[in-house]
């Protein structure tokens, strides 16, 4: 991953004033590792489900399984798509269940 691109993203944060170029390199390397990690884990999830195509749901599952990643990333992921024609054959449980586990727990929290 090119350090230049990473630098542009880092610079967007106004709180960050100066950064050593070697530190930039480290961030860049870490990001590449992170991408590899997520890609590999997501593929594992897909293969567990006997699927050949990695989808957002697989990525979401992979994120959930790794605590440090889940802590910062879960909120950023798009919500699962609303029930559509695509979901009719296998994932019936997902279609009939309430929109998400998360809203349910939030509701429960407020009911207290």
């Amino acid at each position: 991953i090119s350090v230049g691109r990473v630098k542009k993203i880092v610079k967007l944060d106004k709180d960050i004033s100066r950064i050593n170029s070697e530190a930039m390199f480290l961030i860049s390397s870490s990001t590449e590792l992170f991408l590899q990690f997520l890609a590999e884990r997501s593929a594992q999830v897909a293969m567990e489900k006997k699927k050949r195509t990695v989808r957002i749901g697989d990525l979401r599952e992979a994120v959930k399984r790794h605590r440090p990643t889940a802590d910062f990333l879960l909120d950023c992921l798009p919500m699962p798509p609303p029930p559509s024609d695509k979901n009719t054959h296998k994932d019936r449980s997902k279609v009939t269940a309430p929109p998400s586990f998360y809203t349910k727990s939030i509701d429960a929290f407020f009911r207290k």
Partner: protein
Amino acid sequence: MEPSDIVGKTKEDASLPKATMTKIIKEMLPPDVRVARDAQDLLIECCVEFINLISSESNEVCNREEKRTIAPEHVIKALEVLGFGEYIEEVYGAYEQHRLETVDSVKSVKWSNGAEMTEEEALAEQQRMFAEARARMNGGG
């Protein structure tokens, strides 16, 4: 964390090169596995979030140490704090390689902000910190 912290500001302005990212992703997968396009895009966005996270935390580490410039050791510390300590070894290896490639042309490396260390001292200091981080990681599990 407010939703507004996450949404919008980086997406339009800067992102990572899609071709490079796609290549890296494919390298990690078996040959017969594909990635849906929206999942690919999402992976890239996740990386951008990761960059924001690491740089933000590195910045905090840097401020706590009352330094003005984020240095490699701040990034290492940030990785550890955030739970990505397992990356440190590999990242450090790549960094060392990179240093070896550049140090030939640059005799005196200005390593941290104003500190007057010789290159050997700086390297020894860094080795010590990495060893410490590794020990903490191994000890802490």
